[in-house]
Protein backbone atom coordinates (compact mmCIF):
# COMPACT_ATOMS: atom_id res chain seq x y z
CA UNK A 1 0.00 0.00 0.00
CA UNK A 2 1.40 3.39 -0.90
CA UNK A 3 2.01 6.01 1.77
CA UNK A 4 -0.62 8.30 0.28
CA UNK A 5 -3.23 5.50 0.40
CA UNK A 6 -2.26 4.65 3.96
CA UNK A 7 -2.56 8.29 4.97
CA UNK A 8 -5.97 8.58 3.31
CA UNK A 9 -7.26 5.47 5.09
CA UNK A 10 -5.99 6.71 8.44
CA UNK A 11 -7.65 10.02 7.87
CA UNK A 12 -4.19 11.58 8.13
CA UNK A 13 -3.63 14.92 6.48
CA UNK A 14 0.14 14.46 6.31
CA UNK A 15 1.41 15.55 2.92
CA UNK A 16 3.13 12.98 0.70
CA UNK A 17 5.91 14.36 -1.51
CA UNK A 18 6.60 12.87 -4.91
CA UNK A 19 10.23 12.00 -5.65
CA UNK A 20 11.98 11.61 -9.02
CA UNK A 21 15.57 10.27 -9.22
CA UNK A 22 17.78 11.28 -12.17
CA UNK A 23 21.16 9.59 -12.68
CA UNK A 24 22.73 7.84 -15.66
CA UNK A 25 23.85 4.96 -13.44
CA UNK A 26 21.25 2.28 -12.62
CA UNK A 27 23.35 1.43 -9.60
CA UNK A 28 23.19 4.97 -8.22
CA UNK A 29 19.45 5.26 -8.91
CA UNK A 30 18.81 2.09 -6.90
CA UNK A 31 21.19 3.25 -4.17
CA UNK A 32 19.36 6.56 -3.73
CA UNK A 33 15.96 4.83 -3.80
CA UNK A 34 17.06 2.26 -1.20
CA UNK A 35 18.82 4.73 1.08
CA UNK A 36 16.19 7.42 1.42
CA UNK A 37 14.17 6.75 4.55
CA UNK A 38 11.28 9.22 4.39
CA UNK A 39 7.80 7.73 4.75
CA UNK A 40 6.28 10.83 3.22
CA UNK A 41 8.43 10.63 0.09
CA UNK A 42 6.98 8.46 -2.66
CA UNK A 43 9.10 7.52 -5.67
CA UNK A 44 7.20 8.33 -8.88
CA UNK A 45 9.95 7.42 -11.32
CA UNK A 46 13.59 7.40 -12.31
CA UNK A 47 15.37 8.75 -15.40
CA UNK A 48 18.81 8.12 -16.92
CA UNK A 49 19.37 11.51 -18.56
CA UNK A 50 17.93 15.02 -18.78
CA UNK A 51 15.67 14.29 -21.76
CA UNK A 52 14.03 11.32 -20.01
CA UNK A 53 13.78 13.39 -16.84
CA UNK A 54 11.84 16.16 -18.60
CA UNK A 55 9.35 13.66 -20.08
CA UNK A 56 8.87 11.93 -16.74
CA UNK A 57 8.56 15.26 -14.93
CA UNK A 58 5.68 16.34 -17.18
CA UNK A 59 3.87 13.03 -16.57
CA UNK A 60 4.40 12.68 -12.82
CA UNK A 61 4.77 16.26 -11.49
CA UNK A 62 7.27 15.46 -8.69
CA UNK A 63 7.90 17.79 -5.74
CA UNK A 64 11.47 16.63 -5.05
CA UNK A 65 14.15 15.68 -7.59
CA UNK A 66 17.63 14.25 -7.07
CA UNK A 67 19.75 15.22 -10.06
CA UNK A 68 23.09 13.94 -11.38
CA UNK A 69 25.14 16.42 -13.44
CA UNK A 70 27.20 14.40 -15.91
CA UNK A 71 24.73 12.53 -18.11
CA UNK A 72 24.34 11.81 -21.84
CA UNK A 73 21.83 13.63 -24.12
CA UNK A 74 21.09 16.42 -21.64
CA UNK A 75 23.21 17.13 -18.56
CA UNK A 76 21.89 17.97 -15.12
CA UNK A 77 22.68 21.70 -15.29
CA UNK A 78 20.57 22.16 -18.42
CA UNK A 79 17.81 19.94 -17.04
CA UNK A 80 17.58 21.86 -13.74
CA UNK A 81 16.84 25.09 -15.63
CA UNK A 82 14.09 23.41 -17.65
CA UNK A 83 12.48 21.74 -14.62
CA UNK A 84 12.44 25.01 -12.66
CA UNK A 85 10.86 26.76 -15.67
CA UNK A 86 8.08 24.14 -15.65
CA UNK A 87 7.56 24.19 -11.88
CA UNK A 88 9.33 26.93 -9.90
CA UNK A 89 8.39 25.30 -6.56
CA UNK A 90 10.19 22.03 -7.33
CA UNK A 91 12.99 21.20 -4.85
CA UNK A 92 16.14 19.88 -6.53
CA UNK A 93 19.05 18.15 -4.81
CA UNK A 94 22.12 17.79 -7.03
CA UNK A 95 24.01 14.55 -6.31
CA UNK A 96 27.26 14.61 -8.25
CA UNK A 97 30.89 13.54 -8.21
CA UNK A 98 31.84 16.95 -9.59
CA UNK A 99 33.36 18.39 -6.47
CA UNK A 100 34.39 21.82 -7.76
CA UNK A 101 32.73 24.98 -6.48
CA UNK A 102 32.00 26.30 -9.96
CA UNK A 103 29.69 23.36 -10.71
CA UNK A 104 27.80 23.79 -7.42
CA UNK A 105 27.40 27.53 -8.01
CA UNK A 106 26.16 26.98 -11.56
CA UNK A 107 23.62 24.38 -10.38
CA UNK A 108 22.35 26.74 -7.66
CA UNK A 109 22.09 29.61 -10.13
CA UNK A 110 19.93 27.46 -12.38
CA UNK A 111 17.58 26.74 -9.48
CA UNK A 112 18.94 23.77 -7.51
CA UNK A 113 18.28 23.89 -3.76
CA UNK A 114 21.02 21.61 -2.44
CA UNK A 115 24.26 19.89 -3.44
CA UNK A 116 25.53 16.52 -2.22
CA UNK A 117 28.91 15.18 -3.35
CA UNK A 118 29.40 11.57 -4.35
CA UNK A 119 30.42 9.39 -2.65
CA UNK A 120 27.89 9.86 0.14
CA UNK A 121 26.70 7.90 3.15
CA UNK A 122 23.02 7.07 3.76
CA UNK A 123 23.04 9.58 6.61
CA UNK A 124 24.39 12.38 4.40
CA UNK A 125 21.74 11.62 1.77
CA UNK A 126 18.90 11.68 4.28
CA UNK A 127 20.15 14.88 5.91
CA UNK A 128 20.35 16.55 2.50
CA UNK A 129 16.82 15.45 1.56
CA UNK A 130 15.48 16.53 4.97
CA UNK A 131 17.03 19.97 4.44
CA UNK A 132 15.39 20.15 1.02
CA UNK A 133 11.91 19.27 2.32
CA UNK A 134 12.06 21.69 5.25
Amino acid at each position, binding site marked *: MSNSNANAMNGSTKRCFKLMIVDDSNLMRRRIERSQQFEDLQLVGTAGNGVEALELFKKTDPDVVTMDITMPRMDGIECIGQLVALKPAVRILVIS*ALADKATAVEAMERGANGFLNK*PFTDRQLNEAIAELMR
Partner: protein
Amino acid sequence: MLHEQELKTFVEGTTNFFEVTAQQPASIGSPYLMEGSPAVHEYTGVINISGKRQGVVYFTAPKAMLTVLLMKMQENDFSHETMRDLVGEVANMISGNARRDFGRDFVISVPSVLSGEKPQLPQKPGMRSFIIPINWRSHSAKLIVSLT
Protein backbone atom coordinates in the same frame (compact mmCIF):
# COMPACT_ATOMS: atom_id res chain seq x y z
CA MET B 1 56.83 14.22 -15.01
CA LEU B 2 53.96 13.40 -12.69
CA HIS B 3 53.85 15.51 -9.52
CA GLU B 4 53.29 13.86 -6.15
CA GLN B 5 50.28 16.09 -5.44
CA GLU B 6 48.65 15.06 -8.72
CA LEU B 7 49.10 11.40 -7.88
CA LYS B 8 47.69 12.04 -4.41
CA THR B 9 44.53 13.56 -5.87
CA PHE B 10 43.85 10.46 -7.99
CA VAL B 11 44.60 8.10 -5.09
CA GLU B 12 42.37 10.03 -2.68
CA GLY B 13 39.50 10.01 -5.18
CA THR B 14 39.76 6.22 -5.24
CA THR B 15 40.23 5.49 -1.53
CA ASN B 16 37.51 7.97 -0.55
CA PHE B 17 35.03 5.87 -2.50
CA PHE B 18 35.84 2.76 -0.47
CA GLU B 19 35.85 4.60 2.83
CA VAL B 20 32.50 6.35 2.32
CA THR B 21 30.54 3.89 0.20
CA ALA B 22 31.71 0.60 1.70
CA GLN B 23 32.47 2.07 5.15
CA GLN B 24 35.74 0.17 5.09
CA PRO B 25 38.97 1.92 4.08
CA ALA B 26 41.25 0.64 1.34
CA SER B 27 45.02 0.59 1.74
CA ILE B 28 47.62 1.60 -0.81
CA GLY B 29 50.34 -0.81 -1.94
CA SER B 30 53.78 0.25 -3.12
CA PRO B 31 53.48 2.22 -6.37
CA TYR B 32 55.71 1.25 -9.29
CA LEU B 33 56.52 2.51 -12.77
CA MET B 34 56.14 0.48 -15.92
CA GLU B 35 56.52 1.02 -19.64
CA GLY B 36 54.05 -0.38 -22.16
CA SER B 37 50.47 -1.45 -21.76
CA PRO B 38 49.66 -2.51 -18.17
CA ALA B 39 47.58 -5.62 -17.51
CA VAL B 40 44.07 -4.89 -16.31
CA HIS B 41 41.29 -6.76 -14.50
CA GLU B 42 37.82 -7.61 -15.86
CA TYR B 43 36.36 -4.12 -15.29
CA THR B 44 38.11 -0.80 -15.95
CA GLY B 45 36.91 2.78 -15.61
CA VAL B 46 38.73 5.19 -17.93
CA ILE B 47 39.25 8.96 -17.65
CA ASN B 48 40.95 10.82 -20.51
CA ILE B 49 42.85 13.96 -19.59
CA SER B 50 43.90 16.83 -21.85
CA GLY B 51 44.86 20.48 -21.47
CA LYS B 52 47.81 21.18 -19.20
CA ARG B 53 48.45 17.42 -19.08
CA GLN B 54 47.79 14.68 -21.61
CA GLY B 55 47.03 11.10 -20.79
CA VAL B 56 44.71 8.58 -19.23
CA VAL B 57 43.81 7.43 -15.71
CA TYR B 58 42.36 3.95 -15.21
CA PHE B 59 40.73 2.25 -12.23
CA THR B 60 40.73 -1.49 -12.87
CA ALA B 61 39.20 -4.09 -10.53
CA PRO B 62 38.46 -7.81 -10.51
CA LYS B 63 34.86 -9.04 -10.52
CA ALA B 64 35.29 -10.64 -7.08
CA MET B 65 36.20 -7.30 -5.48
CA LEU B 66 33.31 -5.51 -7.16
CA THR B 67 30.89 -8.24 -6.04
CA VAL B 68 31.86 -7.77 -2.38
CA LEU B 69 31.74 -4.00 -2.78
CA LEU B 70 28.20 -4.26 -4.15
CA MET B 71 27.21 -6.47 -1.22
CA LYS B 72 28.55 -3.83 1.18
CA MET B 73 26.38 -1.30 -0.66
CA GLN B 74 23.31 -3.55 0.01
CA GLU B 75 22.98 -4.08 -3.75
CA ASN B 76 21.18 -7.20 -4.98
CA ASP B 77 21.99 -6.96 -8.67
CA PHE B 78 25.39 -8.44 -9.55
CA SER B 79 24.97 -8.31 -13.32
CA HIS B 80 27.62 -7.34 -15.85
CA GLU B 81 25.88 -3.96 -16.27
CA THR B 82 25.99 -3.25 -12.54
CA MET B 83 29.72 -4.10 -12.42
CA ARG B 84 30.28 -1.68 -15.30
CA ASP B 85 28.21 0.96 -13.50
CA LEU B 86 30.30 0.50 -10.37
CA VAL B 87 33.74 0.99 -11.97
CA GLY B 88 32.23 3.88 -13.92
CA GLU B 89 31.15 5.49 -10.65
CA VAL B 90 34.60 5.04 -9.11
CA ALA B 91 36.14 6.66 -12.22
CA ASN B 92 33.52 9.41 -11.96
CA MET B 93 34.60 10.18 -8.41
CA ILE B 94 38.30 10.19 -9.32
CA SER B 95 37.41 12.60 -12.12
CA GLY B 96 35.39 14.83 -9.77
CA ASN B 97 38.29 15.03 -7.32
CA ALA B 98 40.70 15.91 -10.13
CA ARG B 99 38.45 18.72 -11.38
CA ARG B 100 38.24 20.17 -7.89
CA ASP B 101 42.01 20.04 -7.28
CA PHE B 102 43.35 20.84 -10.75
CA GLY B 103 40.76 23.35 -11.90
CA ARG B 104 40.06 24.17 -15.52
CA ASP B 105 43.69 23.69 -16.65
CA PHE B 106 42.92 19.99 -16.82
CA VAL B 107 40.19 18.95 -19.23
CA ILE B 108 38.78 15.73 -17.84
CA SER B 109 36.51 13.53 -19.93
CA VAL B 110 33.28 11.86 -18.89
CA PRO B 111 34.44 8.40 -17.72
CA SER B 112 34.02 5.39 -19.97
CA VAL B 113 34.22 1.68 -19.10
CA LEU B 114 36.16 -1.26 -20.56
CA SER B 115 35.20 -4.82 -19.66
CA GLY B 116 35.92 -8.36 -20.77
CA GLU B 117 38.54 -11.03 -20.36
CA LYS B 118 41.66 -9.17 -21.49
CA PRO B 119 40.84 -5.64 -22.59
CA GLN B 120 43.87 -3.95 -24.11
CA LEU B 121 44.61 -0.45 -22.89
CA PRO B 122 45.53 1.96 -25.67
CA GLN B 123 49.02 3.20 -24.81
CA LYS B 124 51.35 5.57 -26.66
CA PRO B 125 54.79 4.06 -27.40
CA GLY B 126 57.32 4.99 -24.72
CA MET B 127 54.60 6.16 -22.33
CA ARG B 128 55.24 5.17 -18.73
CA SER B 129 52.53 4.52 -16.18
CA PHE B 130 52.40 4.76 -12.42
CA ILE B 131 50.66 1.69 -11.03
CA ILE B 132 49.19 2.07 -7.56
CA PRO B 133 47.79 -1.12 -5.98
CA ILE B 134 44.52 -0.49 -4.10
CA ASN B 135 44.00 -3.21 -1.51
CA TRP B 136 40.60 -3.73 0.07
CA ARG B 137 39.71 -6.70 2.25
CA SER B 138 41.39 -9.66 0.52
CA HIS B 139 41.15 -8.08 -2.95
CA SER B 140 43.40 -5.89 -4.99
CA ALA B 141 42.57 -3.36 -7.70
CA LYS B 142 44.89 -0.98 -9.53
CA LEU B 143 44.94 2.72 -10.22
CA ILE B 144 46.94 3.36 -13.38
CA VAL B 145 48.07 6.92 -14.09
CA SER B 146 49.61 7.58 -17.51
CA LEU B 147 50.21 11.30 -17.94
CA THR B 148 52.77 13.37 -19.84
